[in-house]
């Protein structure tokens, strides 16, 4: 309460995609790894069973279009969720 540390504020945004064409559980893990290696990404969850992809990221460093391309590069089709 007494001391307030000032620091550069980091804006964390979240976005979702839906990937309907995952065809093996490892494929979902691979996409999860690939997305978490993108600069500015704080947290990624990829769910094989529902196809839901949830990404928490710093919007001053990266935008959702980059995520969509990253998913496509892994061979899957991202849809807006």
């Amino acid at each position, binding site marked *: 309460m007494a001391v307030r540390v000032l620091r550069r504020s980091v804006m964390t945004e979240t976005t979702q995609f*839906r990937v309907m064409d995952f065809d*093996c559980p490892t494929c979902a*893990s*691979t996409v999860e790894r690939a997305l978490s290696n993108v600069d500015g990404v704080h947290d990624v969850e990829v769910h*094989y*069973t529902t196809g839901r992809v949830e990404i928490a990221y710093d919007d001053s460093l990266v935008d959702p279009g980059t995520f969509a391309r990253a998913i496509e590069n892994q*061979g899957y*089709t991202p849809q807006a969720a």
Partner: protein
Amino acid sequence: MERQTIARYYRTNRKALATAASGLLYAGGWSIGHVTGLDTVSAVTLILAAAIGGYDIATTAYHEVTNRTLGIKTLVTLAAIGAIVIGEYWEAAAVVFLFSLGSYLEGRTMRKTRNALQELLDMTPDTATVRRDGTQQEVPARDVDEDEVVIVKPGGKIPVDGTVVDGESAVNQAPVTGESAPVHKADGDEVYAGTVNQEGALEIRTTGSGSDTTLERIIRRVEAAQEAQSPTESLIDRFAKYYTPAVIVLAIGAYALTQNAILSLTLLVIGCPGALVIGPPVSIVSAIGNAARSGVLMKGGEHLERAGKIDLVAFDKTGTLTKGETTVADVEGFGVADDEILSLAATAEKKSEHHLADAIVDAARERPTARADGGATVAKAGGLDAGLQTVPDPDDFDVVAGKGVVAHADGNEVVVGNRALLDDRGVDIPERVADYVREREGRGETAVHVVRDGSVVGVIAMHDALRESAPGVVAALQDAGIRTVMLTGDNERTAAAVAGEVGIDEYRAELLPADKQTVIEEYQADGHVVAMIGDGINDAPSLATADVGIAMGAAGTDTAIETADMALMADDLERIPYAVTLSKATRWNVIENVGLAVLTVTVLLAGVLTSYVTLAAGMLVHEASVLAVILNGMRLLRH
């Protein structure tokens, strides 16, 4: 945009086309080899089959390797390359074709499972007709503000959550509550986005739109439930952590001993725990998706697996087995006019929130205008609502939990309560009062005594009608081998009468709210897996204590959904046997899938190690087992 769409179309269908091409080339190469004996032509065709079918697999394998995840696609790629290197072209082509066919089918079937919920979301229309600036405008449904009035034509889908402010109609609420029969809606009634207005035009004041609607909240919860790991799933994940390296060690060991590369690769490919990893999640996702479409919210695989073991179902009586609409059935004064009894009791109970109190106060308000000589506490006509009697406030009042109230009004002490309260206060119950009470209780009614200044002056008998569906639901559970129990705060005789009417196995009467929890713990101590069914608000502690807490009529009440393991969106008892049998079916389905997967891998491993199973045959059985568990799990979508 157009080019992007075409590109996406191509990407989605490329896997199918590559699989088909690979299959044709494989068949061609095999025939050429067998019929003409042109070995070179045959080899080239088979290598082509492996290359075309394997391109996608190898690409993913490359991503797996660069992202440091070890998956079956890497192993299949290694196996195919290995087979080509040592000249086993037929094996290479067969393995690639079978795997690519298998994963194409796996992708398709999983898409169907994933779509089960999407259909629910599609129920909400994209646009809404609102009244803005005095005109009707069509706007995106997500942009409708709170308190804005939305107009829904007959036959139209309701685009927002809200309250009816004008019009009257029948609304099909199946997407939210799973009820197939339409529900009558008029002024003041709540309606949900995604439901269908069937008859008249409705004007609705918006309470939530976009992602802030009941349907969207339910779907988000259902998805979270589908993604939560069940105990079986986490067990398998832990097992796989050791199992996969063990298979790799086995494969290396086999190579060291036999120098047979194909044997090692075969071990790697068929040792993959594909069916084992996929089976249980597919069962659970299908079951949760099915339940959601029937208006039952399952909180996750863990809850579902536990629900599959239920062998005892406890019902809260009031509002669960009964309609929860308590009305005064009879008033009997003993030396005092019936009207005065009602009036005395109503004043004493006015500030209480108990459902029996509400019934007494309502009855006092609605009774015919009091006689002029009715006494000091008789209400005078003309209050806020014309035609209703007013009920005066008590000077003070105390609630005695589970027993009644003690109040003061007009210089009198008034006690309204059950036998226990009268015993506590040392009030004598005359024989003719006791006779009357016994008679009413024998009919399943609840009787409360009205005591003025220490002596019983009357009795009010109250009735809460049984739900028509209750006896059938209890019988269905009994048929499924489940013991049924009714828990109630009512006295023994009332409880016995209601229990007899419902046909329930056992009842526990005269329970205080906290006693219900204790009773559940007793059953658990006896080794029962107990489900408790209630409204989720008054009985939240018992729901939390039970192995599986089931809340009824939960649409719109987040508290109930939070507490419960399962929530029935509709206030519909008939969903209970469905929910219980679905849970049992899911539990068996998971066991079947795990059993099939373990059996397949064991037989294949033994077959490979004894050289009975080749790479291609192993792949065929492996892929068949993956598809078998997915299809088995998907049966739960149609339970």
